[in-house]
Every structure is written in C-alpha cells, then in structure tokens.
C-alpha cells in the first residue's frame, strides 16, 4: 500500500470510451465539418480532451481520422451525440476525396438513437435539451456533457447495446 492507495483497484485513468462531438455548418445546402472535440475517458471521468477547429476542412477531417484510427487500434468505443455524425463525416470524406480514410472498423453509439429509442422524449435533439430533460448541469464542455448523459442513461439501456 502506497499513500493509502491499494494496488488491487481498477485503473482510474482507463480510456474505454471516446466521447466525440462534431461541429458542423450548413453552407449552400451542404453540411460541412468545421471542427470536432474528443474526450477520452471512462464512465466516471474524461482523462484527455482534444479538439480541432478551423477553416481547412480537409485538415480537420484528417486530424479526426487519426483519432478514429487510434480508437480502432485501442478498441475504444466511440460515443457521439447525433445519429447522423458519421454519415456526415462519410459524405465529407467522399466529397473531398480524402484518400487513406477508413471507417469500416469504427464502432460507435449515438445518444440520439438511445434517447429516441429507449426514452419517452419528444423535445429537441441536442445536448442542452437532453441535459435539461435529464436534470444534468450544462456548465461542462460538450464532451463532458456527452459523458454525463451517457453515465446517466447507460445503466438503463438493454445490455446488448454496450457489449
């Protein structure tokens, strides 16, 4: 025992989850990706936060692809807010002809899908509304909010969704 901490405790800085939020902007009827924010962590806390924002969409997506590859390599489950995040990402990758991109092995869960499928909720589908619905404080960064919502609803979701 060192500093009253026992060795036989779980690793508190493990990163089984990647909480991802995509910043999008509609320009000439096309959804463009203007940035992203990622929080790696577990159900209790976020360990590392990463973000990218700017005008160069290709550069932003390439940086995101690097993080997604890391998730694939480390078998980290990606949790996003919106159901259409990955379809928008796929569309932009294809439209911008970003070579070397691969999303075939990416496993992700969207809070939107869980909330609409498993809860009686008919309000706006955005983080702030969900937090209000679940009585969660909104004074955290977006990835923190995703983590807090996930922490609140994950134990109520059928087991197969998380395995």
């Amino acid at each position: 025992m060192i500093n009253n901490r026992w060795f036989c405790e779980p690793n508190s800085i493990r990163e089984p989850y990647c909480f991802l939020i995509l910043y999008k902007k509609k320009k000439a009827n096309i959804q463009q990706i203007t940035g992203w924010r990622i929080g790696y962590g577990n159900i209790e806390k976020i360990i590392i936060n990463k973000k990218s924002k700017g005008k160069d969409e290709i550069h932003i997506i390439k940086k995101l692809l690097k993080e997604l590859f890391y998730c694939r390599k480390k078998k980290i489950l990606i949790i996003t807010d919106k159901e259409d995040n990955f379809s928008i990402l796929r569309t932009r990758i294809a439209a911008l002809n970003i070579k070397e991109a691969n999303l075939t092995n990416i496993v992700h869960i969207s809070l939107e899908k869980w909330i609409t499928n498993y809860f009686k909720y008919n309000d706006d589908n955005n983080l702030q509304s969900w937090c209000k619905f679940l009585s969660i404080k909104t004074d955290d960064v977006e990835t923190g909010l995703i983590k807090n919502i996930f922490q609140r609803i994950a134990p109520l979701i059928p087991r197969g969704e998380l395995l």
Partner: protein
Amino acid sequence: MRSNLIRVNIILTKEQHQRFKNYAKRYHGSLSQFLRLAAENEIDNQEDANSFYFRPMIENQEKIIKSLNVIAQQIKKIERIPSSIQDLKSFNNQSIASEIEHILLMTESPLSVPDIMEFLTYSQEEIIEGIEWLLDRCLITQIKRINAPSKYKLRGDTNE
C-alpha cells in the same frame, strides 16, 4: 616430390634457417621433417592444453548455447501466438467478467478483489481487468472504502 605432398614456402631469418637446419640434421634428417613434426606437436599440445585447462569453461559455454537455443525456440513459439492478442485479451476479459458477475450474483453481497480471488483462479491483474470491463458497462458499482480495497456489487443489488 610424392603426389600426396604439398610444397609450402616458409619465410625465415638467416639465423633461424641456420639454427633449424642444424637441429634438423642432427635429430630428424631433414628440415621439412622437423618442421612437420614441430607443427603437429604444437597443435596436439594446444588441443590437450585446451581440453585440460578450459574444459569447465567449454562445458559451460556448451550449456549456455543449448539454453540459448531452447530460448530461441520458445520465442519462436510465442511469435506464433495469434497476432491479434488484443482480441484474445478482450475476449478473455469478457469471460472473466461474466464469471465475476456470476459470483456477485450467487454471493448476493459486495465483494472486493481479494474476496473474488478466493473464488477464481485468475491473477489479480486479470480480475481487475474483468472488473473494469463490468464497471465500463455499468453492470457493477464500486463501493470505495478508506484504507481497504473497494468492494463491488451488481448494479441494482440493494444488499449492503
């Protein structure tokens, strides 16, 4: 010169040549005969000396070589284990996790890692990985204690 012999040139100083020649004439008949014998004796003596003085060292060396060969074979075997060891590990975590879950369900009371280790034969590290797997999937909750290892109970279990 006979067909089974080979001619070699040996470079000597004048003094050496004279000295060897005199000695050879006296005891061996010819310089060639003397030098052949001298070379043979030198090799034989050296081999004898080696086998006598260095025998323990040579034996040790042979043992080390054998051990190294065994290690090399073992390494080759390990390399043959599926490269997707990560997959294997996560599968293993899942199976240990389900065993831990079963124990928590059967005992109906919160258990710490040492408690769980009394039921399962896995290492502490493996049990902790199983617990992490269950915690990440919200299947168990951690009861933190001061100066004692945490206990774990199934989420939804109201027994304390």
